[in-house]
Every structure is written in C-alpha cells, then in structure tokens.
C-alpha cells in the first residue's frame, strides 16, 4: 500500500543509551512536500530521533514507515535507498578530499571513478538550486557554510526526496541562514519533504509549515506554524512559561577590579591580534565585549588568564593584602602563578571540552581539576569534589545519570553548567566567560544569564564575551567593542542603538573621546 500523503511516520519509538532513556514513546509524522520543524531543548532527543531515520541508530522499540510502507533502517545505506538524506550537525566530510569526491563518496558503481564526470554533475546540481561551489576545492580549505553546501548537495546527488537537517543554522551567519532558507523553499517547491531541527524560535516561525515539540525525550505535541507564536512554543518546549527578557539589575558595588592598560599581543605570524587595548572591569558589573568573530576576543581573555603571550602593556588586579587594596601585575604570569598570588580569577573558555573540561573524565574529577593541588600529601581527596559535584547537579539542574558520568557524554548545556558551576564555586573576583550560551537552548541560556547576574550581585567583575548583540545589549552594564584587535569604544548599551554598535564593530572610531562612556 502506497500512501503519498505521509513521507515518514514513526510510531512509539523508544531508544536507550545505557540507563538514559533518550526517546520515550515518540511519534513523528512528516507529510509529503512540507517543512516540519522539530523543536526541543538540548538533550530532548531530537537528534537521536532523526538518527534512527538516517540509520545511525537503531530503535529499541517502535515502527517506522516511509511513504506508508513499514521499513527497517539498519544502516545509512538503507536510508539512502529509501530516499532519506540527513545533513548532520557535525559535518561528515573528509577534509583531504575535494568537494566532488566527498559528494560522490560511497555512491555509484564500477571500478574506477571519473573525477571529470562527478565534477560536472556536482556543478550542474549546484547551479540548479542556486548554490555557489567549486567541485575541485579541498574541504579543508572551505568555510563552514561551504561545507554545509556540500552536505546538502551530497544528499541531493543521491536523489533523496526526504531531507533531514540537524541544526543547520547553528553555524551560519544571518545572511547565510537567509540563503539556506531560500534553497529549502526551492526544494519544498520541488516536492521534497524536509525535517529541520532547531531551537531558534524565529527560524521555526520563518521556515516551517508545522512544528513538532519534544521535551526530555518525550513527544509533547504538533502545532501548525501559522496558528502559533513564540510564547506558546517556548512554553511547550520548556514545560512552563518563560519570560523572554533578560534581567539587568543595577550594579552593586563599583570599584575597578581589573585594569588592562595598553595590552598588545602578536600571533605566530607577527600580526597584532591585540593593539593597545585598555579598559577596566569593575566589581559588581557585567562588562560585555562585542566584536566580529576573530577581532581579538579569544586572545584578550587568554592573555588576561595567563595563557597567551603579550609584547606590551599591563594587567593590574586589585587584590586585598591584609586589609589594604594593592594593585598586582598579573600579565605574563602563568595561571598557576596567578593562583599562588592569592588571586581568584575564573575563566570559562569558548572551547569547553577542549580547554575547559576533560571530556573523558567524570564530573567529580573535572570539578577536582581546580582544587586537587590544595591537597597535602600524595593522595587526592575525592570526597569534597564529589559533594561539590552533587551540589552543582542539584542547584544547576544538570541532567546526568550521576557524578561518575564522563562529561563528554552530557549535552552541550549540561557541559556548560558543569564548567561554569565549577568556576563559580571558586568564588572568583573576576569571571571571564567566552560565548557562554553558544549552542545552548533557551532554558539553559537563561539559567546561565541568571548565574552571571547572581555573580554580579555578589560583587564579581564579570567579563562577558558574546556574539549575539541582542543579548549583550540587554545584559551588559557597559559594552566594549573590539574591531581588529583595537578598542573602538566603550559604550553604555542603554544609550546606544544596535546599529551604532554594529558600526563600531566594523570601524575604529576616529575620536575615542566621543563614544567612550
């Protein structure tokens, strides 16, 4: 029996990973020629669900039908044969091969492969849907959006009529997202059925026909996009009403905690990554740092934290020496030496699992990384870190089977909570956070904002490096704008518009005095 109205139907799907019940009795119904948005927070089981369609996982229980016919999908190959193509969140591309080689990989017959033919085919396909792509370019030379283009063309090349996109916009700029959506609409007009996974509400409303919501692995409901709004979707996704505005309490006690004076750094190629950067971070306020990606944000935090070499300038930390505040130079000291001076500075790096935490170690051990050096003798005390880990899990609502779960197995939001929780537990004087909500869903993001405001109220000088200008404008007390390693101004976000800041991000102000607050 062939049912042309339903591209995919999934019934009563269950999936376990060890003790974690990732999908509990989930349903999904994708109609032919529609765009269905799959909405849910991190760890709600969206990716797990679609991975059972793409053949990466096999359901522990439940039924799948494609075009009304019950099917068993055992491998990615089976998925292709059914016309299902998945564009993964983490691209599955081979960097040393060309675009065309990646696209044709694993497809086609015969002993030899004609580079000429596949190059021509890929170029033709790219042109038809309006992509820009050089088939002979190596993938390691490509930008993220080009890589995504390859992934999409790869799926089309195999003749898929059902496309699944896992968080396709997470890595794209707004302009690239617009282009992608235009392509998706072209495909829909072409009769293709599309599932798009996202947690960005405005995108859901912009592109989809219907929305399916998952929460903690459970099916919550399906709504027509035309009949819903952001508030309703958020409520279904989170399970309770959430206010979408960010609080900005008045700064508590203001005094300069950290002074950066004329900080200048060079990279390996001898190019200035930071050029005469000066500012002060005050206690009890959040100092936002805005700028186009690669304007020196990473170098700035790492130079302050003692992880990046500088060639000039100074960083002074106002420390309390037996009751008298003194300014100590910390630039050029190693993180260890900074700690030895009795300075408590916390740093939440951008690369959470690379620089912040050890993915293969459990929560207790990761928490312990910051404190085990205080132990005397050859043995480590695991009891206190375990207590702290348990407290963090409870207070920050970290979803994990227990303290002995490897951090790498947690979802992005939970990883960030472990990291931020550990740093806050140090009771730092300065807290530097780099892109703290990148890849996090609404609920986790707001939890992080609350935590930062809590630190601010306790008199911590918070330095918040962000990419979402809307968020920075709402949460920061002052906003420092970087442009090409230079400070193009420090402004009060209450008094300037987003456009003003956008302009400062692209050009250094002629007269610093005018914009400085």
């Amino acid at each position, binding site marked *: 029996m062939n049912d042309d109205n339903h591209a995919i139907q999934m019934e009563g799907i269950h999936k376990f990973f060890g003790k974690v019940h990732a999908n509990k009795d989930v349903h999904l119904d994708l109609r032919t020629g529609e765009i269905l948005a799959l909405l849910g927070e991190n760890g709600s089981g969206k990716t797990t669900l679609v991975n059972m369609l793409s053949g*990466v996982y096999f359901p522990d229980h439940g039924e799948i039908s494609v075009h009304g016919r019950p099917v068993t999908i055992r491998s990615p190959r089976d998925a292709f044969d059914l016309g299902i193509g998945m564009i993964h969140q983490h691209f*599955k591309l081979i960097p*040393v091969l060309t675009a065309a080689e990646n696209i044709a990989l694993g497809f086609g017959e015969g002993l*030899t492969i004609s580079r000429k033919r596949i190059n021509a085919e890929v170029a033709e396909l790219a042109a038809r849907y309006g992509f820009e792509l050089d088939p002979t370019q190596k993938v390691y030379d490509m930008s993220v959006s080009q890589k995504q283009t390859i992934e999409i063309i790869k799926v089309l090349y195999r003749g898929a009529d059902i496309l699944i996109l896992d968080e396709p916009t997470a890595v794209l700029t707004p302009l690239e997202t617009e282009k992608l959506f235009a392509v998706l609409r072209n495909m829909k007009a072409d009769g293709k059925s599309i599932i798009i996974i996202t947690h960005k509400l405005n995108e859901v409303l912009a592109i989809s026909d219907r929305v399916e919501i998952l929460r903690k692995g459970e099916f919550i409901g399906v709504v027509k996009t035309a009949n819903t709004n952001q508030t309703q979707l958020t409520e279904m996704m989170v399970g309770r009403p959430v206010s979408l505005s960010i609080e900005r309490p008045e700064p508590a006690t203001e005094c300069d905690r950290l002074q950066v004076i004329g900080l200048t750094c060079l990279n390996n190629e001898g190019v200035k990554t930071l050029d005469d950067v000066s500012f002060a971070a005050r206690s009890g306020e959040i100092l936002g740092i805005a700028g186009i990606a690669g304007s020196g944000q990473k170098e700035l935090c790492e130079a302050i934290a003692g992880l990046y070499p500088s060639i000039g300038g100074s960083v002074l930390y106002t420390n309390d020496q037996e009751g008298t505040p003194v300014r100590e130079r910390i630039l050029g000291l190693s993180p260890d030496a900074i700690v030895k001076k009795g300075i408590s500075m916390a740093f939440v790096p951008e690369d959470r699992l690379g620089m912040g935490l050890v993915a293969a170690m459990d929560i207790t051990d990761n928490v312990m990384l910051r404190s085990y050096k205080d132990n005397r003798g050859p043995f480590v005390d695991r009891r206190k870190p375990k207590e702290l880990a348990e407290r963090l899990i409870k207070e920050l609502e970290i979803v994990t089977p227990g303290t002995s779960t490897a951090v790498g197995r947690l979802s992005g939001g939970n990883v960030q909570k472990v990291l931020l929780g550990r740093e806050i537990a140090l009771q730092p004087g300065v807290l530097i956070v780099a892109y703290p909500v990148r890849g996090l869903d609404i609920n986790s993001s707001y939890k992080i904002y609350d935590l930062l405001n809590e630190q601010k109220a306790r008199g911590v000088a918070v330095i918040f490096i962000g990419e979402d200008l809307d968020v920075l404008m709402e949460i920061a007390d002052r906003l420092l704008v970087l442009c090409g390693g230079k400070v193009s101004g420090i402004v009060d976000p209450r008094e300037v518009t987003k456009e003003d800041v956008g302009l400062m991000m692209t050009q250094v102000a002629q007269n610093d005095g005018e914009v400085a607050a």
Partner: protein
Amino acid sequence: MIDTATALLMAAVLAGTPLLLGALGEILTEKSGNLNLGVEGMMFMGAIAGLIGSYSYEQALTAAGFEPSGAISALVALIVSFLAGAFGALIYAFLTITLRANQNVTGLILTIFGTGFGNFFGEYFGLKAGGYVTVSSVTKAAFSPIHFPLLSDIPVLGKLLFQYNWMVYFAVAVALVMFWFFRKSRFGLNLRAVGEDPAAADAAGISVARYRYLATVIGGGICGIGGMYMSMVTTSGVWVHGCVTGYGWLAVALVIFATWSPLRGVLVAVIFGGLMIMRMYITIPGLPAQIYDMVPYLATILVLIITSVRQSKEHAMPAGCGLNYFREDR
C-alpha cells in the same frame, strides 16, 4: 668510484626491497585507519611460512620421484607467505575491528607473537632436517638475479635496473598498483575515506568494517611477502634465527618517511636500504660497525621530527588511524 657507487646502489635496492614490501603492506593497512604495529610479527610469519612452503614442496616432489620446479617453488613461497602474513593480520583485525581492542597493544602483541612463531618453527624444522633447514639449489636459483637479454647488458644502467631477482620487480609493481588504486579507483577513494573519518564514510554508505578487514588482511599478506624475501633472498633460503628482527620496525618508520605514498615508498626504501648496508661499501677508519647500524634508526628519528614540524594536511597520517569505530558511540 663508479663501480663502488653502482655496487652500493644495487645493494641498497636489494636491502630496501623487504622494507618496501613491509611498508606497502602497512600503508594499505593504515589507509584504512588501522595502525597495525605488528609488521615485524607478520614479516616473521611470512618468512618462516614461505621457506617451509618451498621446502615442503621440494621434499614432497623429491619423495614422489619428480624434479621440483624453481618457478613453482617460488610461487608456493609467495602464496604461503602471503597467507601467513594475512593470518597474522586477521587476528589483529578480529581483535581491533570486531572486538574493538586497543590497536597499539594488539599490534605490539602481534609483533611478539609473530617473532616467536617464526623462530619456533624455524628451529623446529631445522632440528627435524638435522641441523638447519634450507631449500635446494633449484629454488635458490629462482631467487637469484634475472638476466634479461639485451637489457641487462646495457652498461651501468643495465646493472642498476635489470639485474635483480624477481621479487624486486614484484615489489615495485605492488607499489604502482597501490598508487593507481588510491588515485583512480572507487574502492581506493572509499578506503581513504574510511581511514580519514570512519563516521563520515559510514554515513556515506561505505561498510567500514569490510574495508578495514580487507585492507588490513591484504596489507598483512604483503608484509608476509616482505618477510619471505628475508628468508629466501637475504639469507639465501636458509633459516637464520631472528633474521627479520628490526626490519619490521624500519618498515613502519618507512611509512612515515614515505608520507603514506606508495611511490615515494619506493624511493625511500632505496635510501633506507642504502643506509643499512653502507658500512660494507664506505669505510671510515676507526668508526665501529655498531655506529653504522644505528644510522637507519637515527634517520627514522630525524624523519619523525621533520614530519611533525612540517604540518601538512595532505601528507599526513590518515586522521582516523589508530581509532576504532563504533557507529553508536556518543
């Protein structure tokens, strides 16, 4: 002077051939993402199996009253040594691909196992044959230099290119076939994908396990043939205790030196071969022989330093090498 240089080059080619075969086998294996450090073990297994294969063939035919043929004897050695090396690799493949055991540990164990396997059966057949095991002159002749009409008589060039035993040409042919395989064939492209990123290859519908098994087993077979060269050519068909020792590790180093390219492997094998036999052709008074023996290993260390400093994406180890793949891993 010319004579010394020619003689050195010829000797370098002869000494480099078993290294080339070992390295080619390992290149094929590593391209699939399996870092099989058991090259030495598989070469030992191939060495003894090839020798015993030829020996048994001769004994059987002589006992039946026939005259053994050199060509068939060589063919038997080739097939049996391939099978022995492939068998060693199959153990490795089963442990790492199916049971997902640690690749480094498994490879080291294979080296220890293969070394013991080779020496044990070498001694065993030696005792049975009454002292030492050796093949007859017919087989030895099959492994001696070939004289091509006309070609071999060209001055200098004829000596340098056309006066080797058949295994030298065989090794170069394997290198050429592998070069074509990686460059032009669909399966070669698939194999490279499996070695670079098994998850991506899997998502593209390529069977990671099948490619890894085949590449590892065939690669192991080629290593086995390299070992057979040691027992049939280098030691002239006599089993010498520990005859492969050190060669397997040099072959692994050669893979790095050749930056995973079969054709560069040919060139680099001659260089390594030359370093190994240099002391017989260039004598520096007062320099102990042991210093000469160190040179290939010093060169290996040098290569490791150079390759790690010069970071190239193209001439690097396959990115997935050394990592086992499990689809549902999170």
